């Protein structure tokens, strides 16, 4: 008689095992599938209004017709200025945490501050933006004030992803460089950063996606409900896609049903495209990695 025949107890266990595996798969699908049904619904409803004209003309007729061009351009402005501010600071912070900081109370406090920066409600960031940038520093409601608010809010995204990219560079690379007599900065500049560059870019793309979708922080700091011209500089107010979606779906009467679906589709298209790009980038990177 072969010794490895399943006992009755064993068979029952295996049945439970299979049952539980299916149960968890079901839970996973129940979480993920409804969202995709919703997304497909958004595409079906929003697709009819998609056209070059929709993307490249301004809203007309009290925002019940026309396109979204000023909002699109405004979002690009907001994201660009926010990145100019947060990428240098975020990368510096990540270099400090990964290459310089030792495991002491200060590092702990910094980590706690980063978690909190990500966890503070977006509307509190908006209040901060109003109190600090609009009023105290006197920028008024402007792209600058809104972008600084956005930049601070999304700083944790840059810090965390850059730190991960830096820490993925093997210690031996640094040690080899130090043994050649290079200073810490020379090592970072010529060995660590080049090897982490694509990882850092992945994080920045992710921040673009995050920044483009935010609404609450820009509502009172620089984004306007309706402004039919394009911003000329960082001290101008601007329309933004995210706020435009909020405005035409809640504040403006008699908007044709398809219009907000169109705006939602463009917004979600930008965000998901950026995220997919970042994920694809990361996958290629992982495959190409030599160490």
């Amino acid at each position, binding site marked *: 008689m072969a010794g490895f025949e399943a006992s009755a107890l064993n068979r029952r266990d295996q049945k439970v095992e299979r049952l539980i595996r299916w149960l968890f798969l079901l839970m996973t699908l129940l979480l*993920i599938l*409804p969202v995709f049904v919703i997304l497909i619904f958004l595409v079906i409803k929003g697709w009819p209004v998609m056209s070059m004209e929709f993307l490249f003309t301004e809203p007309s007729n009290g925002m019940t017709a026309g396109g979204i061009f000023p909002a699109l351009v405004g979002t690009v402005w907001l994201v660009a200025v926010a990145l100019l501010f947060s990428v240098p600071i975020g990368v510096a912070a990540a270099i400090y945490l990964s290459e*310089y900081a030792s495991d002491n109370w200060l590092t702990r406090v910094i980590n706690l501050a980063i*978690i909190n920066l990500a966890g503070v409600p977006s509307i509190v960031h908006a209040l901060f933006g109003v109190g600090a940038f609009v009023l105290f520093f006197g920028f008024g409601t402007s792209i600058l004030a809104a972008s600084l608010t956005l930049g601070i809010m999304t700083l944790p995204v840059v810090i965390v992803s850059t730190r991960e990219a830096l820490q993925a560079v093997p210690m031996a690379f640094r040690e080899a460089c*130090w043994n050649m007599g290079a200073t810490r900065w020379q090592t970072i500049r010529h060995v660590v950063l080049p090897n982490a560059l694509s990882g850092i870019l992945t994080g920045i793309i992710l921040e673009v996606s995050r920044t483009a979708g935010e*609404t609450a922080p820009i509502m009172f700091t620089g984004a306007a409900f309706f402004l039919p011209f394009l911003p000329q500089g960082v001290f101008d107010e601007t329309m933004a896609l995210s706020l435009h*979606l909020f405005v035409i779906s809640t504040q403006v009467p008699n908007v044709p049903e398809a219009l907000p679906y169109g705006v939602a589709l463009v917004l979600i298209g930008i965000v998901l495209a950026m995220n997919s790009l970042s994920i694809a980038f990361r996958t290629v990177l992982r495959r190409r990695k030599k160490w």
Partner: protein
Amino acid sequence: MGSPESAEVAGAVEGAGVAEGAGVAASFAEDADARTMAWYVDKGVEILVFIGGVSAIIFIFGIFGFVMKEGAGFIAGSLDLGEFFTSPRWAPTSSYNPTYGALALIAGTASVTGLAMLLAVPFSLGTAIYIAEFATGRIREILKVLVELLAAIPSVVWGFIGLSIMNPLIIDLFNVPVGLSVLNSGIILGLMAAPIMTTIAEDALKAVPDTYREAAEALGATRWQVVFRVVLPAAKNGLVAAVLLGVGRGFGETMAVLMASGHSINIPTSVFDSVRALTATIAAELGETAVGSDHYKALFALGIFLFLVTFIINLTADLVIRGVRKR
């Protein structure tokens, strides 16, 4: 997180310093000027990078400071804290008797967040367990990417989904007059918080050493016995932290709740009641207030309350995770 490795960095640098020794020093001496230049650059960068490092601390204090600056005077002065926490009457624009009772707003936020967690916690933990313990290879990668994409959908789009897709659906399904309610915003918020909780919970499960699983399997445990008897208890703290951060996310969410909850001041008695959240109140009213007015300051007072609550939630989550690492 990077700290143990950074300690290694420091150690290695000292090691390198020792290795420089006598022979190398000679070659450096010829190059003295270049060396001092490099040394100054090195120090300069260290200072710059340090400033970047502490910037997060500066910004957190900045946020608290500026919100306090606008709202603290009002809390200390004309705001009746008893009324703030016990009265459901939020009527800051009333001309003869403005009242600032936040109870209904707190109840609104709590009911929406509570329902969201009730729906999202089981599914998030289930998904995390499936991805970390059961799924393999390509399926696991695909599921992780999908969860990540879910987390990317902007909150204003979620709000729009609540407003224009969920609203008519709830009206039809349950035969109720209004579909913008605790139920609507709870489901939306649950879908929003789930990806974050899933990701953190999955990290917590992955952090359980494989030797634990191997030991249990060697004793003849089946996969689910390993998961329930060994992995889950070992990852308990991380899972608690995941739920806490999900609660924090729900508590602070603004646009989706503003658009899907109905935005009427109400202590809910059923999931079909419309409510108004703390965050949504600030978002809806700040634009209409005059800078420096009592109403304006009262909104900043709500902001201080939100900041403190989320700070405590995040701090607790951090301490809970720390507890895991110490062990």
